[in-house]
């Protein structure tokens, strides 16, 4: 039991710091803050990481990973948030990439991994359907074999950034007989294929990131099937576990806590800074305590992973606590902004600079306990897998 850093770790940290110092993450952040230039900013940033070989440090070395230890990954995340640098988009690098290098053919690896790493291909995740959310296995989008192709029909929903995507990885039904989980396959589909339409869903933060994706007799070459037909559920489940560890966002929450501390020092009430307000202090430190515990909870899970013990129900634990803490932080931030947290049109003219962002974070942040397997579903998993009910 110890948490000291080796000389090697300290050297690594210096390397990370100098990378962030010279790579101007604020420029990428600015582009990404504007919906019109979001995509451009995200790609630019990933290309910089790629040049440094840090786009997917957690991938195996032979596929372009960096072979970091968990300490290094932890140091990188800490430095990234300190530098206010963007996180990478998860869909390619954290979701479909690992599925392709684990279950894909050599040809698929050669074809898709480079574009995922260097940011040339934008991926989106086509799992959920109008009738299949928590009960994902009940999905109905059909893929029927016809010669060397599959013909795909159906609808996906809540597809984040489908409007920007070049590719979508989908769970589709190839067999409707038997147990629902057994008839699901994992298919990679080119978003330019004829028969695909994307329609926007506007969300409660006033922005557009969600979509419905409709498939009308879309022809997909059989070579885009991952692994075996009917095994898609197994592949998807291994991927969901990765998604859930990424979801804890410990470093981001620490950064938010620091920002809140600074804001509370300058936000006044009755001539006194809010940082002296008793209620604020109690709420702030309550979140701080939970985050201190979460940080070590995550490190314990990561160290188990490093010993090749795959994250099982532990990742559910991280997801639940991580998202609860994120939401508590959002709530404290918007309440610190007071009535200014509610200003939408003209927010730039209020002379109050964090209320608008706080509101958007709060509203969209409600999704954190819903996506990636809702927190209720995570609790069901823990009850079954850990508690043995």
């Amino acid at each position, binding site marked *: 039991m110890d948490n000291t850093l080796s000389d090697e770790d300290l050297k690594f940290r210096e390397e990370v710091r100098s990378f962030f110092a010279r790579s101007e993450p604020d420029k990428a952040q600015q582009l990404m803050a504007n919906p019109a230039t979001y995509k451009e900013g995200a790609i630019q940033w990933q290309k910089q990481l790629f040049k440094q070989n840090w786009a997917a440090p957690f991938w195996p070395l032979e596929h372009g990973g960096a072979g970091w230890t968990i300490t290094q990954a932890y140091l990188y995340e800490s430095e990234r948030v300190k530098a206010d640098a963007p996180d990478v988009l998860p869909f390619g690098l954290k979701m479909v990439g690992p599925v392709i290098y684990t279950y894909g053919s050599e040809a698929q690896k050669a074809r898709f991994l480079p574009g995922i790493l260097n940011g040339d291909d934008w991926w989106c995740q086509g799992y*959920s359907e109008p*009738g*299949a*959310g*928590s*009960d994902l296995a*009940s999905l109905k989008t059909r893929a029927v074999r016809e010669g060397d192709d599959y013909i795909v029909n159906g609808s996906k*929903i*809540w597809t984040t950034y489908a409007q920007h995507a070049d590719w979508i990885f989908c769970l589709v039904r190839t067999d409707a007989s038997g147990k629902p989980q057994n008839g699901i396959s994992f298919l990679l589909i080119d978003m330019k294929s004829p028969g695909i339409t994307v329609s926007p*869903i*506007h*969300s*409660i933060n*006033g922005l557009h990131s*969600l979509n419905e994706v409709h498939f009308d007799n879309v022809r997909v070459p059989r070579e885009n099937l991952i692994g075996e037909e009917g095994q898609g559920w197994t592949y998807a489940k291994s991927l969901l576990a990765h998604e859930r560890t990424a979801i804890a966002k410990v470093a981001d929450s620490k950064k938010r806590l620091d920002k809140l501390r600074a804001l509370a020092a300058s*936000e*006044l*009430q*009755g*001539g006194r800074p*809010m940082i002296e*307000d*008793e*209620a*604020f202090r109690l*709420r702030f430190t309550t979140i701080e305590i939970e985050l201190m515990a979460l940080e070590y909870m995550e490190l314990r899970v990561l160290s188990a992973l490093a010993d090749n013990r795959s994250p099982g129900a532990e990742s559910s634990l991280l997801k639940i606590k991580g998202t609860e803490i994120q*939401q508590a932080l959002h*709530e404290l931030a*918007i*309440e610190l902004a*007071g*009535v*200014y*947290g*509610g*200003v*939408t*049109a*003209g*927010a730039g*003219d*209020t*002379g*109050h600079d964090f209320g608008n962002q706080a*509101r958007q974070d709060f*509203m*969209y942040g*409600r*999704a954190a*306990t*819903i*996506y990636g397997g*809702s*927190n*209720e579903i995570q*609790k069901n998993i823990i009850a079954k897998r850990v508690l043995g009910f």
Partner: protein
Amino acid sequence: MNFSLSEEQQMLKDSAARFIQQEYSFERRQEDVSNPEGFDPGLWKQLADLGWLAIPFMEENGGFGGDATDLMLLMEQLGAGLVPTPYLATILLFGKLVESGTDGDLRASLLNRLIAGEMQGAVAFMERQSRYALADTTVQAKRSSTGFELNGEKTLVLNGPVADKFIISARTGGGAQDKTGITLFLVDAGTEGLELNELRLMDGQLVANLTLSHVLVPAQHRVGQENRGFELLERVINESLPAVCAEALGLMHHLTETTIEYTRARKQFGVPIGSFQVLQHRMVDMFTACEETRSLLYRTVCSSDNLASPEHRKNLHALKVLTGLRGKRVGNEAIQLHGGMGLTDELDVGHYVKRLMVLNSLFGDADYHQQKLAEISLGM
């Protein structure tokens, strides 16, 4: 002990409920709120014709002479229907200040126009640095030859862009945080030196930042006594709190009902998600939150005839705290139990939640009022 309504009150409640049910769909609300005024001026006239704008004013002033119970009944229904109106800004704040702070012809003409739905008002009390501290007022009022000259800035004035007249708090004496030394002034929207910057809140209502440079106010347009504006303002705001919380309760109630309905209809794993006990318990919590809030609201309404009593002040703070906390719980659960649907702008849920959030932040949030309550309950 009697919590049943009088015949008149039952009628008010029924007609308000019928009005919302028959005339007020969510689609209409979305249209109204995107108007340049942030509400439907035609609807405002309708409320006047129904007599609802007269409720809180005394009979001798042409009002209905209603009490806290009447207001509660109306506001809860407006909440349930998510009806955007300037009722709080124009009637409960501006109107009530006019009623107690002015007299003679001025009062009569202002109240007549307000009750007829022909005038919009706004009260400017918040400043950039003040947050919820009402006494934190820096706008200066200097004596001039004909009255006063006002200089400074006010922020987030409810209904500001639509108001024909403002009541503005300014300092005629005392230091920045002093309760004494604040005076209220009646100022026309078009007055020279009064500049207005329009903003919108997340519930769709319009608010304004005001810049006052050398705004001249005649002496007879002082509202209430000189240097005693704080007490008057605080009293009127406190009187509006049960109404604000009643509206919040209407919102919470709607969110609870709509969530129950949704979970009955939405199927996953082959069954309605409402059949899962975990979700049933969460909806029981939502229901309980509404019942708790209603109970405290009744308690506060019951003590409303003795506004200055410590008992009533405690009730007010407790009510604002509980409504804030339970409102957040109900809002968050409503979104969560709707899953992805809860995140969409198309569904009414998010809009109800936003209105609840705005109400929580008006006149002090739960944390603020809890500390006020502690001051009374435990001492300073």
